[in-house]
């Protein structure tokens, strides 16, 4: 059978079931507030959000691969484009621009102008240092780890902290060699 052509993010987003973004936004806000109350330290909240994102990413990659018909990316550049144009679109309905590549092609930035996580949000003075959207970086890290890429994902710019856009830096740490099935019959 000929390989199936990858589907565009728009086409997938149009075909999946969707919910109102405000439910999503407000629920996320409720989570962040719970974490702040429980953990008290901003750093701990960042860590927990990243962990939650990681858990989501690990599960979400399956759906992503199943619905997008995207097979292995030839290089990290393609990976970044796929995240920006297909991944973000299909789950959050947004796209990002990929820029700021380094010479080796292992570090780049995703620039987000739209971010459904932060509607209605204003960071109070007491939450300086909080990476409000840290769940998103966790998701990307978790998802990429499932396709054998160890990455570091960090927020460089954040509109909640007064920047003009959201900038997420993706850094490829290493490509983990594929491990062959532990036991075929399992």
């Amino acid at each position, binding site marked *: 059978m000929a390989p199936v052509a990858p589907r565009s993010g728009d086409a997938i*987003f149009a075909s*999946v*079931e*969707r*919910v*109102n*973004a*405000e*439910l*999503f936004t*407000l*629920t*996320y*806000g*409720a*989570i962040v*507030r*719970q*974490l702040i109350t*429980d953990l008290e330290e901003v750093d701990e909240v960042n860590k*927990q959000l990243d962990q*939650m994102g990681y*858990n*989501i990413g690990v*599960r*979400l990659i399956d*759906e992503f691969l199943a619905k997008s018909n995207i097979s292995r990316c030839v290089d990290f550049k393609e990976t970044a484009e796929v995240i920006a144009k297909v991944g973000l679109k*299909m*789950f*959050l*309905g947004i796209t990002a621009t990929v820029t700021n590549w380094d010479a080796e092609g292992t570090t780049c930035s995703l620039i987000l*102008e739209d971010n*459904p996580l932060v*509607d*209605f*949000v*204003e960071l109070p003075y007491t939450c300086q240092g909080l990476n409000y959207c840290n*769940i998103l970086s966790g998701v990307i890290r978790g998802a990429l780890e499932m396709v054998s890429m160890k990455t570091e994902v960090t927020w460089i710019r954040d509109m909640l902290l007064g920047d*003009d*856009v959201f900038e997420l830096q993706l850094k490829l740490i290493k490509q983990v060699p594929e491990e062959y099935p532990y036991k075929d019959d399992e």
Partner: protein
Amino acid sequence: MIGVGKIKQYTNVLDKPLSKGKQEVSLSAFALLFSELVQYNQTQVDNIAELERRLEDAGYAVGARVLELLCHREKGNRRETRLIGILSFVHSTVWKVLFGKIADSLEKGTEHEDEYMISEKELLVNRFISIPKDMGAFNCGAFAAGVVRGVLDNAGFPAVVTAHFVPVEGQQRPRTTILIKFSEEVIYSHLMHSIP
């Protein structure tokens, strides 16, 4: 601000225009996020009642904000002051915005004057959830119950709101009923108003 380029700079969240609320995200994104909310809260508690209470708290925070948002957007800054009015606001407006449809039913309890019920055949937050045997009557609908309580409480109708599974004949999955038990003063003033 004029002339700052494509992206407008806002200093204050209140200076932003209120969105029309037509944006969407995929259901999976919400389901995965909600599942993390449940799992995280599971690590913070040691019994089911406590877990439900925490989910309800999270929902309450959503409800309080939804009330404010929808009163601005849908009702021209007016808020319901009558019991029936606020109940149908929850059942229709709030449900439609949050869950994409009007709730299946809104009924008055037959045994008690102060009880009302909103029922949903397949509540969004229960859709991808299966309850393990050892967690008994645990119901993720507690989150939706929290939303309802958040709306009612902030509109001036304090109530105790709980979510329950009700088996339906001929159907595999039970429906979720959200039981609203208003506090005494709410019912008192409702009855005063209803006297012609």
